[in-house]
């Protein structure tokens, strides 16, 4: 059982626009100055992908921790897992039988210890999904560059490697399943708010991920952005919806002006607009309006 670090590389679907470059440069300037960053933004704003991209620019292996309810302090520093049993029978002198048997727990380092010790980049994805008291373990790491370990380990502290950097990502507080981050942690990080990508970036992402032509990607992105900007959606549609729609019509060979495209829009976007009977009505009206306007523009 050992921690594996990641060597992150961009996939074919990764796009870099001036918007992304500007964001990455800002983040890198803080990281190079020694400050951890927190990419905060709603679902689909590209936090995790950006975190990986920024980490790649730092040129160090990456250790990823994904936040969830079950994360405990031992998920960061490690613990004693399993047993190691050693049984030795020494019969060197035939008249003497010497038997030694020992049984002891084995300590394993977890990701934070490995990252701190080796100077890797830590990506702590969705840290607000973890109980705030668990995240307290990060405070001395980020501030005093010192990681405190349980006394049973043998050594009490790990000195944080000078190359160690931390990139956190978080959802805003109003999202379900997240905790309020403690002030002490927020005070130690530079929080960069992500409000979603600009139109150019969304079009390029849709093109790259779904392999559709510019015109198709542009129409889909505009439909989604108009819905998003209407403020009537219960759940804001993100660039993921654009990619889903583009992939769906690309694989089925659907054209933008067909009834099948409207069905794809309803399937993917209507649940975001609203639920229940009234939600369905709003969705129908809104989608008809947006689709009508967007698709008529070309003609």
């Amino acid at each position: 059982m050992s921690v594996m670090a990641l060597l992150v590389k961009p996939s074919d679907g990764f796009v870099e626009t001036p918007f992304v470059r500007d964001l990455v440069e800002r983040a890198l300037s803080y990281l190079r100055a020694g400050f951890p960053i927190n990419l905060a933004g709603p679902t689909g704003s590209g936090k995790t992908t950006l975190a990986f991209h920024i980490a790649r620019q730092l040129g160090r292996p990456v250790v990823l921790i994904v936040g969830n309810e079950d994360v405990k302090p031992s998920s960061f520093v490690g613990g004693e897992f399993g047993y190691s049993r050693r049984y030795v029978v020494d019969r060197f002198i035939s008249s003497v039988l010497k038997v030694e048997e020992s049984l002891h727990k084995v300590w394993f380092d977890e990701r934070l210890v490995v990252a701190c010790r080796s100077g890797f980049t830590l990506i702590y994805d969705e840290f607000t999904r973890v109980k705030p008291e668990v995240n307290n373990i990060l405070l001395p790491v980020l501030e005093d560059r010192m990681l405190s370990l349980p006394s049973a380990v043998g050594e009490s502290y790990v000195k944080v490697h000078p190359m160690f950097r931390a990139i956190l990502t978080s959802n805003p507080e109003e999202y379900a399943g997240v905790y309020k981050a403690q002030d002490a942690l927020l005070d130690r990080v530079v929080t960069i708010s992500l409000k979603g990508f600009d139109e150019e970036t969304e079009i390029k992402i849709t093109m790259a991920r779904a392999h559709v032509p510019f015109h198709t990607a542009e129409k889909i992105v505009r439909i989604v952005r108009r819905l998003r900007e209407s403020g009537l959606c219960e759940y804001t549609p993100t660039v993921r919806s654009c990619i889903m729609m583009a992939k769906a019509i690309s694989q089925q060979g659907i054209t933008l002006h067909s009834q099948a495209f409207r069905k794809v829009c309803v399937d993917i976007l209507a649940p975001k607009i609203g639920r229940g009977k009234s939600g369905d009505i709003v969705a129908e009206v809104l989608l008809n309006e947006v689709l009508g306007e967007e698709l008529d523009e070309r003609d």
Partner: protein
Amino acid sequence: MNEIKQPVSKTSIIEKRIRMELEAKYGPILDRATAEAVERRELEALKKRQATIERARLKLLRIKDVARLRQKVRREYARGLRDCPENTQKHEGANADSQVKTQTPLMEAYY
């Protein structure tokens, strides 16, 4: 009845005297067959002793070889323990004296 006395030769008297002197000095003089038998027994005993010594010598050499082998095994075993991947996970604290750092395994990931 007159006893007929055998003439005693002068040579045999001299031989007898010399023999007595020699026996007084070196112990009883054995005949050739007895002497050869004694010599054979002594030779056998000597050979046995030599064989015993040789066996002891070989045993000692074997013990030395085994000791050397055991030392080698111990060294290899200790080295194996040091280089064992699970030991790289131990800490460098007071409780860990036989650990060495190895590189963390890397896996490619695409974003």
